[in-house]
Protein backbone atom coordinates (compact mmCIF):
# COMPACT_ATOMS: atom_id res chain seq x y z
CA UNK A 1 0.00 0.00 0.00
CA UNK A 2 2.70 2.51 1.01
CA UNK A 3 4.84 1.40 -1.90
CA UNK A 4 2.01 2.07 -4.31
CA UNK A 5 1.45 5.53 -2.88
CA UNK A 6 5.17 6.37 -3.18
CA UNK A 7 5.19 5.36 -6.81
CA UNK A 8 2.25 7.60 -7.62
CA UNK A 9 3.85 10.48 -5.78
CA UNK A 10 7.03 10.15 -7.82
CA UNK A 11 5.20 10.25 -11.14
CA UNK A 12 4.88 14.11 -11.32
CA UNK A 13 8.61 14.41 -10.68
CA UNK A 14 9.33 11.95 -13.46
CA UNK A 15 7.13 13.98 -15.80
CA UNK A 16 8.81 17.22 -14.73
CA UNK A 17 12.28 15.77 -15.27
CA UNK A 18 11.28 14.48 -18.71
CA UNK A 19 9.90 17.89 -19.65
CA UNK A 20 13.07 19.65 -18.47
CA UNK A 21 15.25 17.14 -20.33
CA UNK A 22 13.27 17.62 -23.54
CA UNK A 23 13.23 21.41 -23.30
CA UNK A 24 16.93 21.56 -22.38
CA UNK A 25 18.03 19.26 -25.19
CA UNK A 26 15.86 21.14 -27.69
CA UNK A 27 17.26 24.52 -26.61
CA UNK A 28 20.84 23.28 -26.95
CA UNK A 29 20.04 21.57 -30.27
CA UNK A 30 18.42 24.67 -31.77
CA UNK A 31 21.03 27.07 -30.44
CA UNK A 32 23.91 25.00 -31.87
CA UNK A 33 22.20 24.50 -35.26
CA UNK A 34 21.78 20.80 -34.59
CA UNK A 35 25.10 20.37 -32.76
CA UNK A 36 26.98 21.78 -35.75
CA UNK A 37 27.90 25.27 -34.54
CA UNK A 38 29.12 25.73 -30.98
CA UNK A 39 31.05 28.91 -31.73
CA UNK A 40 29.92 32.11 -33.42
CA UNK A 41 32.57 31.57 -36.11
CA UNK A 42 31.16 28.19 -37.14
CA UNK A 43 27.65 29.69 -36.94
CA UNK A 44 28.72 32.47 -39.32
CA UNK A 45 30.08 29.94 -41.84
CA UNK A 46 27.02 27.74 -41.58
CA UNK A 47 24.67 30.70 -42.13
CA UNK A 48 26.57 31.84 -45.22
CA UNK A 49 26.59 28.32 -46.68
CA UNK A 50 22.84 28.06 -46.18
CA UNK A 51 21.88 31.62 -47.04
CA UNK A 52 24.41 33.28 -49.36
CA UNK A 53 24.22 37.05 -49.12
CA UNK A 54 25.33 40.00 -51.24
CA UNK A 55 27.67 42.40 -49.41
CA UNK A 56 26.77 46.13 -49.51
CA UNK A 57 28.14 48.10 -52.49
CA UNK A 58 31.13 49.75 -50.81
CA UNK A 59 33.48 51.97 -52.79
CA UNK A 60 37.02 50.60 -52.48
CA UNK A 61 40.37 52.25 -53.12
CA UNK A 62 42.96 49.91 -54.63
CA UNK A 63 46.68 50.03 -53.87
CA UNK A 64 47.17 51.85 -57.21
CA UNK A 65 44.67 54.47 -55.95
CA UNK A 66 41.99 53.49 -58.46
CA UNK A 67 38.44 53.45 -57.10
CA UNK A 68 36.19 50.44 -57.72
CA UNK A 69 33.25 48.56 -56.21
CA UNK A 70 32.77 44.84 -55.59
CA UNK A 71 30.13 44.90 -58.32
CA UNK A 72 32.79 45.75 -60.88
CA UNK A 73 34.29 42.35 -60.23
CA UNK A 74 31.00 40.52 -60.87
CA UNK A 75 31.23 37.76 -63.42
CA UNK A 76 34.33 36.51 -61.69
CA UNK A 77 34.75 34.47 -58.57
CA UNK A 78 36.41 36.59 -55.89
CA UNK A 79 38.23 35.23 -52.89
CA UNK A 80 38.25 37.92 -50.21
CA UNK A 81 40.30 38.19 -47.04
CA UNK A 82 40.49 40.97 -44.48
CA UNK A 83 43.91 42.10 -43.29
CA UNK A 84 45.78 44.97 -41.70
CA UNK A 85 49.22 45.57 -43.11
CA UNK A 86 50.89 46.01 -39.71
CA UNK A 87 49.79 42.55 -38.64
CA UNK A 88 52.63 40.34 -37.43
CA UNK A 89 50.80 37.02 -37.10
CA UNK A 90 47.50 35.95 -38.62
CA UNK A 91 47.67 38.21 -41.65
CA UNK A 92 51.09 36.84 -42.54
CA UNK A 93 49.57 33.38 -42.74
CA UNK A 94 46.61 34.86 -44.64
CA UNK A 95 49.09 36.50 -47.01
CA UNK A 96 50.93 33.26 -47.56
CA UNK A 97 47.59 31.50 -48.11
CA UNK A 98 46.84 33.98 -50.90
CA UNK A 99 50.34 33.54 -52.30
CA UNK A 100 49.77 29.79 -52.51
CA UNK A 101 46.28 30.25 -53.88
CA UNK A 102 47.60 32.62 -56.53
CA UNK A 103 50.21 30.06 -57.57
CA UNK A 104 47.49 27.43 -57.83
CA UNK A 105 45.33 29.74 -59.97
CA UNK A 106 48.20 30.44 -62.35
CA UNK A 107 48.92 26.75 -62.61
CA UNK A 108 45.33 25.84 -63.40
CA UNK A 109 44.85 28.92 -65.66
CA UNK A 110 41.88 30.19 -63.70
CA UNK A 111 41.54 33.72 -65.07
CA UNK A 112 37.95 33.90 -63.82
CA UNK A 113 39.08 33.90 -60.19
CA UNK A 114 40.29 37.09 -58.54
CA UNK A 115 41.89 37.62 -55.12
CA UNK A 116 40.95 40.66 -53.05
CA UNK A 117 42.61 41.67 -49.77
CA UNK A 118 40.76 44.39 -47.89
CA UNK A 119 42.70 46.33 -45.27
CA UNK A 120 40.51 47.37 -42.33
CA UNK A 121 43.04 49.56 -40.50
CA UNK A 122 41.93 52.75 -42.25
CA UNK A 123 44.65 54.96 -40.76
CA UNK A 124 47.61 52.76 -41.58
CA UNK A 125 46.49 50.69 -44.58
CA UNK A 126 47.35 53.40 -47.07
CA UNK A 127 47.75 52.55 -50.77
CA UNK A 128 51.52 52.58 -50.25
CA UNK A 129 51.34 50.24 -47.27
CA UNK A 130 49.06 47.93 -49.25
CA UNK A 131 51.44 47.98 -52.22
CA UNK A 132 54.32 47.04 -49.92
CA UNK A 133 52.22 44.25 -48.38
CA UNK A 134 51.39 42.96 -51.87
CA UNK A 135 55.03 43.04 -52.90
CA UNK A 136 56.01 41.13 -49.76
CA UNK A 137 53.57 38.40 -50.75
CA UNK A 138 54.44 38.40 -54.48
CA UNK A 139 51.00 39.68 -55.47
CA UNK A 140 50.35 39.67 -59.22
CA UNK A 141 48.22 42.81 -59.84
CA UNK A 142 46.25 41.03 -62.58
CA UNK A 143 45.04 38.40 -60.13
CA UNK A 144 45.30 39.95 -56.70
CA UNK A 145 43.94 43.38 -55.75
CA UNK A 146 44.74 45.01 -52.43
CA UNK A 147 42.35 47.71 -51.29
CA UNK A 148 40.77 49.63 -48.44
CA UNK A 149 37.36 51.29 -48.19
CA UNK A 150 37.39 54.74 -49.80
CA UNK A 151 35.21 56.22 -47.08
CA UNK A 152 35.65 55.10 -43.43
CA UNK A 153 31.91 54.97 -42.80
CA UNK A 154 31.56 52.14 -45.32
CA UNK A 155 33.89 49.94 -43.28
CA UNK A 156 31.61 48.71 -40.53
CA UNK A 157 28.70 47.73 -42.83
CA UNK A 158 31.15 45.83 -45.02
CA UNK A 159 32.72 44.01 -42.05
CA UNK A 160 29.26 43.20 -40.66
CA UNK A 161 28.08 41.81 -44.00
CA UNK A 162 31.03 39.45 -44.02
CA UNK A 163 30.65 38.76 -40.29
CA UNK A 164 34.13 40.02 -39.37
CA UNK A 165 34.66 41.10 -35.76
CA UNK A 166 37.76 43.23 -35.20
CA UNK A 167 38.98 43.86 -31.67
CA UNK A 168 42.06 45.96 -30.98
CA UNK A 169 44.72 44.27 -28.89
CA UNK A 170 47.08 45.55 -26.24
CA UNK A 171 49.99 45.93 -28.68
CA UNK A 172 48.32 48.47 -31.00
CA UNK A 173 47.31 45.73 -33.41
CA UNK A 174 44.04 43.91 -33.97
CA UNK A 175 42.58 40.48 -33.45
CA UNK A 176 39.99 39.33 -35.95
CA UNK A 177 38.35 36.19 -37.27
CA UNK A 178 40.55 35.44 -40.26
CA UNK A 179 39.22 33.31 -43.09
CA UNK A 180 38.97 32.97 -46.87
CA UNK A 181 35.63 34.26 -48.21
CA UNK A 182 34.42 33.09 -51.61
CA UNK A 183 32.14 35.47 -53.54
CA UNK A 184 30.51 33.86 -56.59
CA UNK A 185 29.90 35.15 -60.15
CA UNK A 186 26.73 36.93 -59.05
CA UNK A 187 28.50 38.77 -56.27
CA UNK A 188 27.09 36.68 -53.44
CA UNK A 189 29.20 35.59 -50.49
CA UNK A 190 28.67 31.83 -50.74
CA UNK A 191 31.27 30.04 -48.65
CA UNK A 192 33.86 30.68 -45.94
CA UNK A 193 36.99 28.56 -45.50
CA UNK A 194 39.74 28.29 -42.89
CA UNK A 195 42.83 30.35 -43.65
CA UNK A 196 44.91 27.24 -44.31
CA UNK A 197 42.21 25.39 -46.25
CA UNK A 198 43.59 26.18 -49.73
CA UNK A 199 42.54 22.75 -50.97
CA UNK A 200 38.98 23.41 -49.82
CA UNK A 201 38.87 26.68 -51.80
CA UNK A 202 40.42 25.04 -54.89
CA UNK A 203 37.94 22.20 -54.79
CA UNK A 204 35.00 24.56 -54.32
CA UNK A 205 35.95 26.94 -57.15
CA UNK A 206 36.93 23.95 -59.29
CA UNK A 207 33.34 22.75 -59.08
CA UNK A 208 32.16 26.24 -60.03
CA UNK A 209 34.20 26.41 -63.23
CA UNK A 210 32.19 27.77 -66.11
CA UNK A 211 28.97 27.91 -64.12
Amino acid at each position, binding site marked *: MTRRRTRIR*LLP*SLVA*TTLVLTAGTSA*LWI*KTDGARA*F*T*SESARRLTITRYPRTPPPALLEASDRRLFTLEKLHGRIIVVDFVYTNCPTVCVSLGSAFTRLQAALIESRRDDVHLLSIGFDIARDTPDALTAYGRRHLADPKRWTLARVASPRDLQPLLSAFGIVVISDEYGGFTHNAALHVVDHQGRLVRIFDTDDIDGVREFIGAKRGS
Partner: protein
Amino acid sequence: MKTRELQYIIFCVITVLLLFAPPMRDALERSMTTHVLIQLAGLATGGWLLGMAFRGHLRRVMLIVNANGVSGLVLGLFAMSFWMLPRMLDESITDPYVEAAKFVTVPLLVGAPLAISWPRLNPVLCSLLKVKVISALLILGWLYIAAPDRLCTNYYQSDQVLLGQLMIAIAGILAVAWSLPWFIVDGARKRTRRAKSHPAWRGSPGLG
Protein backbone atom coordinates in the same frame (compact mmCIF):
# COMPACT_ATOMS: atom_id res chain seq x y z
CA MET B 1 8.16 35.83 5.39
CA LYS B 2 11.01 35.59 7.86
CA THR B 3 13.73 38.24 8.19
CA ARG B 4 16.32 35.67 7.13
CA GLU B 5 14.50 35.02 3.88
CA LEU B 6 14.00 38.70 3.23
CA GLN B 7 17.74 39.17 3.67
CA TYR B 8 18.42 36.49 1.07
CA ILE B 9 16.12 38.23 -1.40
CA ILE B 10 17.73 41.61 -0.78
CA PHE B 11 21.22 40.14 -1.26
CA CYS B 12 20.06 38.50 -4.48
CA VAL B 13 18.69 41.78 -5.85
CA ILE B 14 21.87 43.64 -4.86
CA THR B 15 24.10 41.02 -6.51
CA VAL B 16 22.17 41.01 -9.78
CA LEU B 17 21.86 44.82 -9.90
CA LEU B 18 25.57 45.27 -9.18
CA LEU B 19 26.47 42.92 -12.01
CA PHE B 20 23.91 44.57 -14.30
CA ALA B 21 25.12 48.15 -13.73
CA PRO B 22 26.67 49.25 -17.05
CA PRO B 23 30.17 50.12 -15.75
CA MET B 24 30.49 46.76 -14.00
CA ARG B 25 28.91 44.90 -16.92
CA ASP B 26 31.26 46.44 -19.48
CA ALA B 27 34.29 45.87 -17.29
CA LEU B 28 33.46 42.20 -16.71
CA GLU B 29 32.50 41.50 -20.31
CA ARG B 30 35.73 42.94 -21.64
CA SER B 31 37.48 39.71 -20.69
CA MET B 32 36.27 36.15 -21.24
CA THR B 33 37.70 35.14 -17.86
CA THR B 34 35.76 37.68 -15.82
CA HIS B 35 32.67 37.21 -18.02
CA VAL B 36 32.48 33.53 -17.08
CA LEU B 37 34.07 33.34 -13.63
CA ILE B 38 32.69 36.54 -12.14
CA GLN B 39 29.61 37.63 -14.08
CA LEU B 40 28.02 34.25 -14.84
CA ALA B 41 29.11 32.74 -11.52
CA GLY B 42 27.86 35.86 -9.72
CA LEU B 43 24.47 35.71 -11.42
CA ALA B 44 24.16 32.05 -10.48
CA THR B 45 25.07 32.93 -6.88
CA GLY B 46 22.37 35.62 -6.88
CA GLY B 47 19.90 32.98 -8.03
CA TRP B 48 21.17 30.61 -5.35
CA LEU B 49 20.33 33.24 -2.67
CA LEU B 50 16.85 33.58 -4.15
CA GLY B 51 16.46 29.81 -4.05
CA MET B 52 17.52 29.81 -0.36
CA ALA B 53 14.79 32.35 0.37
CA PHE B 54 12.11 30.18 -1.19
CA ARG B 55 13.33 26.78 -0.03
CA GLY B 56 10.83 26.57 2.81
CA HIS B 57 7.90 28.05 0.91
CA LEU B 58 8.19 25.76 -2.07
CA ARG B 59 8.64 22.62 0.01
CA ARG B 60 5.21 21.13 -0.74
CA VAL B 61 5.41 21.83 -4.46
CA MET B 62 8.96 20.50 -4.62
CA LEU B 63 7.89 17.31 -2.88
CA ILE B 64 5.59 16.72 -5.85
CA VAL B 65 7.57 17.85 -8.92
CA ASN B 66 11.16 17.77 -7.63
CA ALA B 67 11.49 14.46 -5.81
CA ASN B 68 15.12 13.92 -4.72
CA GLY B 69 15.93 17.23 -6.41
CA VAL B 70 16.38 15.54 -9.78
CA SER B 71 14.28 17.77 -12.04
CA GLY B 72 15.71 20.95 -10.49
CA LEU B 73 19.24 19.63 -10.86
CA VAL B 74 18.70 18.74 -14.53
CA LEU B 75 17.18 22.18 -15.17
CA GLY B 76 20.14 23.95 -13.55
CA LEU B 77 22.71 21.86 -15.43
CA PHE B 78 21.06 22.37 -18.83
CA ALA B 79 20.65 26.12 -18.34
CA MET B 80 24.26 26.33 -17.23
CA SER B 81 25.61 24.45 -20.27
CA PHE B 82 23.45 26.65 -22.51
CA TRP B 83 25.04 29.85 -21.26
CA MET B 84 28.50 28.31 -21.32
CA LEU B 85 28.30 27.79 -25.12
CA PRO B 86 30.99 30.02 -26.68
CA ARG B 87 28.30 31.22 -29.09
CA MET B 88 26.13 32.47 -26.25
CA LEU B 89 29.05 34.34 -24.67
CA ASP B 90 29.53 36.15 -27.99
CA GLU B 91 25.83 36.73 -28.59
CA SER B 92 25.19 38.07 -25.11
CA ILE B 93 27.69 40.84 -25.78
CA THR B 94 26.48 41.75 -29.24
CA ASP B 95 22.71 41.29 -28.87
CA PRO B 96 20.98 43.31 -26.08
CA TYR B 97 18.01 40.90 -26.00
CA VAL B 98 20.28 37.93 -25.41
CA GLU B 99 22.07 39.97 -22.75
CA ALA B 100 18.77 40.68 -21.00
CA ALA B 101 17.80 37.01 -21.24
CA LYS B 102 21.11 36.06 -19.63
CA PHE B 103 20.56 38.35 -16.64
CA VAL B 104 17.09 36.90 -16.06
CA THR B 105 17.63 33.21 -16.79
CA VAL B 106 21.00 32.56 -15.16
CA PRO B 107 19.68 33.48 -11.67
CA LEU B 108 16.24 31.95 -12.20
CA LEU B 109 17.11 28.79 -14.14
CA VAL B 110 20.61 28.01 -12.88
CA GLY B 111 21.13 29.38 -9.36
CA ALA B 112 17.64 29.13 -7.88
CA PRO B 113 16.79 25.55 -8.96
CA LEU B 114 20.20 24.31 -7.82
CA ALA B 115 19.78 25.98 -4.41
CA ILE B 116 16.33 24.47 -3.99
CA SER B 117 17.39 21.02 -5.20
CA TRP B 118 20.75 20.75 -3.43
CA PRO B 119 19.45 19.78 0.05
CA ARG B 120 16.90 17.42 -1.55
CA LEU B 121 19.55 15.52 -3.48
CA ASN B 122 20.09 11.90 -2.73
CA PRO B 123 23.64 11.75 -1.22
CA VAL B 124 24.75 9.34 -3.95
CA LEU B 125 23.56 11.77 -6.63
CA CYS B 126 25.20 14.60 -4.72
CA SER B 127 28.61 12.90 -4.79
CA LEU B 128 28.12 12.05 -8.45
CA LEU B 129 27.42 15.71 -9.14
CA LYS B 130 30.61 16.77 -7.38
CA VAL B 131 32.66 14.37 -9.50
CA LYS B 132 30.85 15.61 -12.58
CA VAL B 133 31.55 19.27 -11.80
CA ILE B 134 35.26 18.57 -11.29
CA SER B 135 35.58 16.56 -14.51
CA ALA B 136 33.58 19.12 -16.53
CA LEU B 137 35.88 21.90 -15.30
CA LEU B 138 38.96 19.83 -16.18
CA ILE B 139 37.69 18.95 -19.67
CA LEU B 140 36.54 22.50 -20.49
CA GLY B 141 39.75 23.95 -19.07
CA TRP B 142 41.86 21.62 -21.17
CA LEU B 143 39.73 22.41 -24.24
CA TYR B 144 40.16 26.16 -23.74
CA ILE B 145 43.93 25.79 -23.36
CA ALA B 146 44.41 23.37 -26.25
CA ALA B 147 41.99 24.85 -28.82
CA PRO B 148 44.06 26.03 -31.81
CA ASP B 149 41.61 28.84 -32.57
CA ARG B 150 39.66 31.33 -30.57
CA LEU B 151 36.25 30.05 -29.49
CA CYS B 152 34.75 33.53 -29.11
CA THR B 153 35.22 36.13 -31.83
CA ASN B 154 35.07 38.89 -29.22
CA TYR B 155 37.90 37.62 -27.02
CA TYR B 156 41.64 37.05 -27.31
CA GLN B 157 43.13 33.61 -27.38
CA SER B 158 45.37 34.51 -24.41
CA ASP B 159 42.21 35.28 -22.43
CA GLN B 160 40.75 31.91 -23.36
CA VAL B 161 43.92 30.12 -22.22
CA LEU B 162 43.84 32.01 -18.91
CA LEU B 163 40.22 30.99 -18.37
CA GLY B 164 41.16 27.37 -19.09
CA GLN B 165 44.01 27.47 -16.59
CA LEU B 166 41.80 29.02 -13.91
CA MET B 167 39.11 26.38 -14.52
CA ILE B 168 41.67 23.63 -13.95
CA ALA B 169 42.84 25.43 -10.81
CA ILE B 170 39.25 25.65 -9.55
CA ALA B 171 38.76 21.94 -10.27
CA GLY B 172 41.84 21.24 -8.15
CA ILE B 173 40.62 23.43 -5.30
CA LEU B 174 37.18 21.80 -5.34
CA ALA B 175 38.70 18.32 -5.40
CA VAL B 176 40.79 19.12 -2.33
CA ALA B 177 37.97 20.96 -0.54
CA TRP B 178 35.46 18.16 -1.09
CA SER B 179 37.81 15.35 -0.15
CA LEU B 180 39.44 17.05 2.83
CA PRO B 181 36.64 16.06 5.26
CA TRP B 182 37.51 12.39 4.64
CA PHE B 183 40.81 12.97 6.35
CA ILE B 184 39.43 15.01 9.22
CA VAL B 185 36.43 12.99 10.35
CA ASP B 186 35.98 9.27 9.90
CA GLY B 187 32.61 9.20 8.18
CA ALA B 188 31.61 5.64 9.11
CA ARG B 189 30.03 6.49 12.45
CA LYS B 190 28.52 9.71 11.26
CA ARG B 191 27.01 7.98 8.25
CA THR B 192 25.18 5.32 10.26
CA ARG B 193 23.71 8.02 12.40
CA ARG B 194 22.68 9.94 9.33
CA ALA B 195 21.20 6.86 7.72
CA LYS B 196 18.79 6.62 10.59
CA SER B 197 17.76 10.24 10.43
CA HIS B 198 17.92 11.25 6.80
CA PRO B 199 14.99 10.07 4.65
CA ALA B 200 17.10 10.20 1.48
CA TRP B 201 19.53 7.64 2.88
CA ARG B 202 16.69 5.33 3.80
CA GLY B 203 15.31 5.55 0.31
CA SER B 204 18.54 5.06 -1.57
CA PRO B 205 19.16 1.70 -3.18
CA GLY B 206 21.39 -0.72 -1.33
CA LEU B 207 21.08 1.09 1.96
CA GLY B 208 17.52 0.03 2.66
